[in-house]
């Protein structure tokens, strides 16, 4: 029996312990904000938070979330738009939008640890998140915008 918090709610899972968190979220619980992109931690589309840290949910088996607190994009929005989501809208970052929930979750984790990231900090933190539409410049601009506003 695996017990953990999902978006603040006590949750119990008794299925295959090897099932990746991503597929638990998407196919079992129906939380579809985290996206499937590669299945191998290569693209970041499935990024969620485990105890506040950005993780690739496609590569986190359920047995590893025992006792953890998991937050998905749905949990981020529960209290209204997060400043990062607001910045994403103001900068008009998305094109197709498929990778953007992962980008946003990664950016929130970055900004929680580093209130004023440099370009190089952003490169390091965000380079695991692919965007085939190529919105990187706007992702960077939106992160700087949040940092400036929170300063």
């Amino acid at each position, binding site marked *: 029996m695996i017990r953990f918090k999902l978006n603040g709610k006590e949750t119990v899972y008794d299925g295959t312990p090897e099932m990746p968190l991503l*597929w638990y979220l998407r196919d079992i619980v129906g939380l579809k*904000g985290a996206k499937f*992109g*590669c299945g*191998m931690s290569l693209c970041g589309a499935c990024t969620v938070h485990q105890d506040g840290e950005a993780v690739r949910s496609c590569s986190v088996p359920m047995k590893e979330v025992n006792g953890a607190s998991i937050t998905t994009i749905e949990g981020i929005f529960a209290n209204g738009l997060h400043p990062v989501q607001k910045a994403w*809208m103001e900068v008009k970052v*998305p094109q197709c*939008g*498929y990778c953007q*929930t992962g980008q946003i979750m990664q950016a929130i984790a970055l900004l929680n640890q580093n209130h004023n990231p440099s370009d190089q900090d952003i490169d390091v933190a965000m380079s695991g998140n692919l965007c085939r539409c190529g919105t990187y410049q706007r992702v960077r601009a939106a992160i700087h915008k949040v940092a400036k506003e929170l300063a």
Partner: protein
Amino acid sequence: MNNIQNVSRRRFLKGSLAAGTFVLGARLVPDLLWANSSSAAPAVFQPDVFLAISSDGTVTIVAHRSEMGCGSRTALPLVVADELDADWSKVVIDQAIGDPKYGEQDTDGSHSVRSFFAQMRQIGATGRVMLIAAAAKQWNVPEKECATEPSFVLHKASGRKLSYGELAPAAAKLAVPKKEDVPLKRRSEWRYIGRDNSLFDLPDIVTGKATYGMDASMPGMVYASIEHPPVLGQKVKSYDDKEALKVGGVKQTLTIPPFKPPHQFQPLGGVAVIADNTWAAFQGRRALKIDWDTSPNSVYNSDQFRKTLESTARQPGKVVRNVGNVDAEFAKGGRIIEAEYYTPHLAHASMEPPVAVAEYRDGKVLAWVPTQNPQAVQETIAGVLGIKKEDVTCHVTLLGGAFGRKSKPDQAAEAALLSKQLGKPVKVVWSREDDIQFDFFHSVAAMYLKAAIGPDGKPTAWLQRTVYPPIGSTFDVNAKYADDEMGLGWNNLPFDIPNHRAENGPADAHVRIGWFRSVANIYHAFAIHSFADELANAATKDPVEYLLDLIGPPRIVPLDYKPDEQEEAKRYPLDTGRLRRVVEMVAEKSGWGKRPSGKGHGFGIAGHRSFLTYVATVVEVEVDGQGRVQIPNVWTAVDSGTVVAPDNVRNQFEGAASFGASLALLSEITVTNGVVDQNNFSDYQLVRMDTAPKHTNVYIVESDAPPAGVGEPGVPPVAPALYNAIHAATGRRIREMPLSRAKLV
């Protein structure tokens, strides 16, 4: 017959619109045909809802094009709303299913806005005129005394005002005015067109609520993952699913029959694992043991094939454009320059892999698909199941990227086939490995160019040959020539050269070939603009000055257009004045010539017209001691005529710089014994935050010209401009893609 009809009294909406709703239907045909639409009108006109105004003021506008990130789903309804003078915050967008009554729905070729701009304006303006008429009647005043502001009709003289919602029931009873009685807004009156606006789906995207194909579901649905034949055309000889069936959650396995050539969009065949979640289906698939038959495509090795393409390119090919006599000019002797260029296969790799949900029931199919072309979904499913196209309903979700891949609905046909066998809805999910290995690939290509150089350094003759397996091979097993792709930057060289010949040589396809963002323009622009830069260097001229010299004076370039291209040619002639202007603009904006190139730092330029849009791009590179390349800046000047959503245009061209940098720097698909060598983003690489161009600066030419393409034309100039910059920085000439094949130090 008017293309727009008042269909308020029809009851075809299954009661979703309340009584008193004002509904206009429209028959959509591309704008180029629409200009003479009375002659094109069919005998039976079956308009569907296109624009509906409910008595509560909600304005529903149908989006008949797909949204894959280019903004079409926002841009076209925005044009309707502007001419209607509706309050955009009251607009709801209704995504159309696939249906021929919407006309052509294939969201490709960067043509959604260009093909439907005039009609969207007309539909909106017609609604506005009818709402004004309804108000004028109620107030008993002349219509010309009435004006509108967003979602209201006003009578200024008396200070009266009625909302569109209040007027809807009365407008619903009026006849549609004639086209000539429907004034369009002046440009200065546009509220939304040409202004900053956001994607309609933006709030849903950032909150994770947006529904892509990957997020679609149906009650009782099962999940399928399919092991496809590793080599195109292989068939299942036998298979063993014992281990697969032991995986928890796996229910059964099923075979999918092989395609009948030509493969078109048919499923590839293979073995499907059915499970109660996606992960179980993936796991079950890994445990399958399949014995595959042989295929003639097992002989395909892309390294070998390159040599074949290159040797074909050295031989005379089919002439696709001829000006003067290049042979006579070459025979004169003098200075001759030759060069060969090569580009590999590419995979689309949209972030959302192919996926579809379909249910077969009682001879009919209901499907939810992230597709660029819902009517192709209908046709393909109908074809493989032997049912009528009308019996396939295709709902269109948002697309998590597409880039041409999602014009081809093989995965939707797989879902429908499996659903028929299982008697329940099926969701087919392709893994990233499936996506990269079984794509409809961007074609591999070889180009040969030759020029005779006059005393002034300018070419007196220019010969260009291109050779690649054509997209036509997907539809015709005998297709060897790329006849339909010559207009993509090959039979329309906009240079002022007295002797010019463009040729195309034959090539066979051994993998599925398909449209890829910007299509053949990618390799054509690469060859032409690399060669132009080589000639500028040979002539020791500045590349921008030399390019402007090649383009020559402002003029309309005479080209041979096919009968079906005549309308387009009249409306969008190849105008070298516009091409010159974007080259001059990007040179000025980038500060061209102000900082010298060399010592690992350089600038390069390319200017290419595609999808009727003129684009010039300057790339700045820095190459360090280890040969690593950074792109601090890209500057792009764009003339795409009238622009609906300028910020979205900037976003598309910023994205195109990254897309172009991916293929120029990193991406390639290679094939060994018919099997694709790459699997995932580890070996099929794309630019990331740290390797993408850092700043892309987009400049849009103010223009009243008809709208042209936006989604694709940003890509082609990037690779040649980047390679030209590398040459300026290091002296190394790059003649093959991607750069990762070359060692810069």
